[in-house]
C-alpha cells in the first residue's frame, strides 16, 4: 500500500464519521420504536414495547407486506426476463441502435419518479385500466429492467465465448448451450440483479403512489398513509425497524454472491 499512515488514520476517522452520519437517523428511528409518546419529541419521555404488539396485530400491515412481496417478486421476474433478453441482444450482436437500447433502458430510472408516475397514471386512466396490484407491478418492472440488464451485461462482457463455441461444436443446439453453459455463468449476475430489483421494488414509493389506486397498499404506501395520521407514527417506526433488521439477510447474501462490487444501478 502506498498511503502514508497519516492518510490511513485520517481516512479511517472520516470513514467512521461518514458511517455515523449514515446510521444516526436509523438509531434515532430505533429508539423511537420504543417511544412511549405518540408525538416524536426528543428525548422520548419513556420506553415501551407496546407498539410492537400493535404492529403485529394490525391486519393492514400484513396485507401491505404481502402485496409488497408479491409485487416485488412479479416485477423482479419480469425484469429479469426482459433484462436478460436485452443484454443478450446488446452484448452478442451488432446492430443499428445498439447504444440507444442501454439509453432507453436507463431512462425509467434516470428520469424523476414523479414523471414516470404521473405518465403511467395518466396513461392507465386514459386506457381505462383498473388500478391495483397489476398496475403497480407494471410500473415497478419498468424501472427494474435496467437493474437486471446492467448486471447481466456486465457479466456477459466478462464471460468468454469459447465454452459456448465448444459446446456448439460438440453438437449442442442453441437452447442446450444457453441452458448448460451461458446460464450457469450468468447465475450470480442474475441473482444479484434479482436482489437489487427486489429491493428497489420493495422500497419504491413515488411511482407506486401514482399507480396503486385506492384499494391496494404496499408497505411503503402503508407507511406513507400511516405517517399522515399522528396516531400511527410509533407503529411506523416499529415497521421500519423490523424491515431494516430483516434486510440484513438479503444484503448479506447479495454480498456473498456479488463477490466483487455488485453494481448498484438503481
Amino acid at each position, binding site marked *: 500500500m*502506498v*498511503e*502514508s499512515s497519516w492518510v490511513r488514520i485520517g*481516512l479511517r476517522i*472520516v*470513514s467512521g464519521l*461518514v*458511517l455515523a452520519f*449514515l*446510521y*444516526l*437517523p*436509523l438509531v434515532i*428511528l430505533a429508539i423511537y420504536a420504543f417511544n412511549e409518546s405518540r408525538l*416524536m419529541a426528543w*428525548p422520548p419521555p419513556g420506553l415501551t414495547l407496546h407498539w410492537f404488539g400493535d404492529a403485529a396485530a394490525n391486519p393492514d400491515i400484513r396485507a401491505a407486506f404481502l402485496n409488497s412481496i408479491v409485487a416485488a417478486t412479479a416485477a423482479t421476474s419480469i425484469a429479469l*426476463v*426482459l433484462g436478460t*433478453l436485452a443484454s*443478450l*441482444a446488446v452484448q452478442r*450482436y451488432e*446492430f443499428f441502435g445498439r*447504444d440507444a*437500447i442501454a*439509453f*432507453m*433502458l*436507463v*431512462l425509467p430510472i434516470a*428520469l*424523476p*419518479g*414523479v*414523471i*414516470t408516475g*404521473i*405518465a*403511467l397514471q*395518466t*396513461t392507465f386512466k386514459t386506457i381505462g385500466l383498473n388500478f391495483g396490484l397489476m398496475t403497480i407491478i407494471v410500473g415497478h418492472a419498468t424501472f427494474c*429492467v435496467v437493474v437486471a440488464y446492467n448486471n447481466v451485461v456486465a457479466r456477459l462482457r466478462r464471460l468468454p465465448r469459447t465454452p459456448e463455441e465448444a459446446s456448439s461444436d460438440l453438437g*449442442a443446439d*442453441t*437452447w442446450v448451450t444457453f441452458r448448460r453453459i451461458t446460464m450457469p455463468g450468468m447465475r450470480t449476475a442474475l441473482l444479484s440483479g434479482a436482489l437489487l430489483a427486489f*429491493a428497489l421494488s420493495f*422500497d419504491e*414509493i*413515488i411511482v407506486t403512489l401514482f399507480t396503486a389506486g385506492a384499494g391496494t397498499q404496499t408497505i*411503503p404506501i402503508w407507511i406513507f398513509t400511516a405517517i399522515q395520521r399522528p396516531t400511527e*407514527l410509533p407503529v*411506523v417506526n416499529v415497521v421500519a425497524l423490523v424491515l431494516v433488521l430483516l434486510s440484513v439477510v*438479503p*444484503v448479506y447474501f*447479495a*454480498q456473498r454472491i456479488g463477490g*466483487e462490487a455488485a*453494481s*448498484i444501478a*438503481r
Partner: protein
Amino acid sequence: MTAPGPSTETAAPPASRGRALARWLYGRSRTQLRLLLAAPLAWIVLVYLGSLVVLLLNAFWAKDAFTGNVAPFQWTLAAFEEIFGQEVYRTIAVRTVTIALLVTLTDALLAFPIAYYMARIASPRTRGILLIAVLMPLWAAYLVKIYAWRTILQGNGFLAWVLSPFGIHGPGLSSQPNAWLVLSYLWLPYMIVPIYAGLERIPGSLLEASSDLGAKAGVTFRRVILPLLVPALVAGSIFTFSLSLGDYIVPNLVSNAKFIGNVIYDNSALGNVPVAAAYSLLPIVIMVIYLFAARRLGAFESL
C-alpha cells in the same frame, strides 16, 4: 439451410422441436436478434415511452378551470404560457438544479474517503462488513428515513437538544439547507458503491508506480486516481442528481420550499395535468442531456 452437423463419430442427438427451431435460427442472426429484442423493446417503448408521450400530449391540451376536465385534442399552449410567463417557475428550476448539484458534490466528497478506505486499505473481511454496512441504510424505508430526519431537525428534536447547551437553536423545519442535508444523506450509498467499484478496478501497480516516481499522495490523487474515477463518479452522480432533481417528498417534509418535483406533483394532485406535463419537460430535457454527457464519459459501463 442445414447447420454444419456434428462430427460423424458421435451419435446424433435426438431430433426435437427445440432443436429444429435452433437449426432454423442458426445463421439467421437478424431473426435471433429480433426475437431477443421483441419483448424488452416492446415493453419499454409501449409501456414507458408510450406513457411519456401520453403525458406530454396532455401538456398541449386545454383544461376547464371550473370543472377541471381536460379536453383531449383541444390544442392550446396555455400550460406553456403559464410556465414561461410566471417568474416563479424559473426560480424553482434554478433552486432545484443548484441543490441537486450541491448534493452531488457533497455526496462525492463524503463518499470518496470511505470508498477509498474500503477499496484499498481495509482487509477483505472488513471490506465485506463495510459494504454491508453501507448498503443496509438503503433498505430502511425512504419515507421513514426522512421522518427520522424530521425528528432530528424539528424545534424540539435531537439537533435542538444537542445544540441547546450552546444556546444555538435547532434549524426547525422550514429552512432550505435541510433539503440539501437530507437529500445528501439519502443518496450517499448510491455514490459510495460506484466509487468503491471504480477504485477497486484501479490496479495497485499504477499507484505504486506513481509513488515510486516521487509523487506525493495529493498528486497521485489528482493525476492518477481522479481521472480514472471519472466514469464511476459520473455514474454515481446520475443517481444523486436525478433523484434530487425530481424529489418532492423531501422538500415538502423538511423545508418550506418548492422544488421542480413539487410543482409537478402539486399540479397533478390538483388535477392540473397540462401544467404538470409541461413542466415535466424541463427535468426530462435536463436528464437526457446529462445522460448523453454521462455516456460520453463512459459512465454507463460503471453503473
